[in-house]
């Protein structure tokens, strides 16, 4: 089972070295291999097991108070004037900082 780890890493904006790629690729392929046994189960005629709910059971459109700004920003690495601050280019890579 082949997996393009570099592509997956790029999509997640993670930079990996060649050594890391060489190390992770077989590891991730083993994970996929293990999970792929599920493909052998015969699901012919079996409906997807997903819960169904009637329309009326959805949430009412009633707002409740949110967290305070202080709580929201508590885990942010950088903040500025109540905003979360993230370093990186607009359309380029947003790097972890």
């Amino acid at each position, binding site marked *: 089972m082949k997996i393009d780890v570099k592509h997956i890493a790029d999509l997640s904006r993670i930079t990996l070295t060649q050594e890391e790629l060489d190390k992770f690729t077989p590891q991730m392929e083993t994970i996929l291999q293990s999970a792929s046994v599920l493909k052998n189960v015969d699901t012919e005629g079996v409906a997807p097991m*997903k819960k169904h709910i009637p*329309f009326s059971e*959805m949430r009412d*459109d009633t*707002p409740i108070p*949110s*967290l305070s700004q202080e709580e929201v920003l508590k885990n942010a690495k950088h903040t500025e004037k*109540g905003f979360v*601050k993230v370093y990186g280019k607009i359309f380029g890579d947003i790097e972890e900082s």
Partner: protein
Amino acid sequence: MEYDIIVGLEIHVQTKTESKMFCSCPTGYFQKEPNTHVCPVCLGLPGALPVPNRRAIELCILMGLATNCKINKNILFDRKHYFYPDLPKGYQISQYKDPICSNGKVTLPSEVEIEIERIHQEEDVAKSTHHKEASTNKEYSLIDYNKSGIPLIEIVTKPCIRSAKDAKDFATQIRQICRYLNISDADMEKGQMRCEPNISIQEKGKWKYEDGKILPIGDYKLNNKVEVKNIGSITAVEKSIEYEVKRLTEEIANGKEIIQQTRGWNADKGITEFQRSKETADDYRYMPEPDIPVIEISKEDIERVSKELVELPHEKIARYTKDYEISTYAAEVISSTKENATYFEGILSELKTSLDEKTAAKEAANWLMGTVYSLGKDVDIKDLALLIKKFKDGIITKGVAEELLKDCLGNGKDISDELEKFEGSSKESAGKLEDIVKEIIKNNPKAVADYKGGKTSTMGFLVGQVMQSTKGSANPNEAKNILEELLK
């Protein structure tokens, strides 16, 4: 070389709910402190569970019903993955293969039909602004998650739009529908409605439109399309497409190949600017959202939502022009907002008690477009109807009516009181008017002789003389009546 314009439009609309799409945070975030309408769900904290908002789904269905879409029986959500700071979960909850609404159409005032591929429900992302740090020269973004999780519907047309004008008309109609049905205020400046056209130009006769797709004929290679973002107004929809078509035509004339790309509209310069190329297909790794069950929509649910449908602008235009015989232009202006149309229909029903329907409609339209809109103020329906009736009875002129209106609106006077006063004083002046008419007859023997000799057009001249000597204060109808009486 001659080219055809191929445009498909994606329109995002924030729908009008009290709480967010998948959590109970309040929506009204406009001009609020950043990161104050946020909870673990819309902040994408691990373990937080999304719970769909019923009202939001109803509004999506309502939009689908208003645009003749088929409504899906089951609602399924999917995760669309991409990595960007405005999307805290690392994925957006959206819909992939089974949108709530599909295969709709709307008819533009020009009778052009626009086919709608789908309308699906999703959630908005956070707002980010981009800056550069002066001390370090580092680029950074500031993120406000208040907008994250606001209910958002995406309306996607087929690539069936053939001109910038049709794209503008379609966007206008979608905005009107949103406002008529209270689905959204659809204010583009506030970002409540966003339009993103996909534009390409293809050689005439070298392509065909089949099953909602553009296909090449023979060995023709289709030109790539360009997506334009950052459009802040309905006018910019038209302008940006016109600009792109011109730019693409020039590029091809210069022998350049068009690469698939995203461009941003710069409203100040009136141009589009390159943002990024899309050489590889987007890879969003869609997967079914496991945290939300399948929501079943019954016939009764759809019937309940459809009760919110009201007569829409294009239906009003058709009825006004057909039943009342008012001009298409007037019908379009009047039905451009629900408030205008309701006002027009209110006046009409007042006038119908004393005038026939078509005359009533014509007068209502004329007074609305000529008098009320130019005043720019709310005029009470009963007051305006009263003035129109007095005008039709020949008691006041339009000029006098407008003066009265201005006076009453500006000084808080009551129109019926003022009308009574005016009628009293005009009875008094009627005697004076007769004296003036007699004077005019005496001073214009030739015109009088011509009139008596059968040249009836001279009447206009005589009325004009009366108006001149009263400095326009006389009622021309009244002057005419007195003249006719005296010259019998």
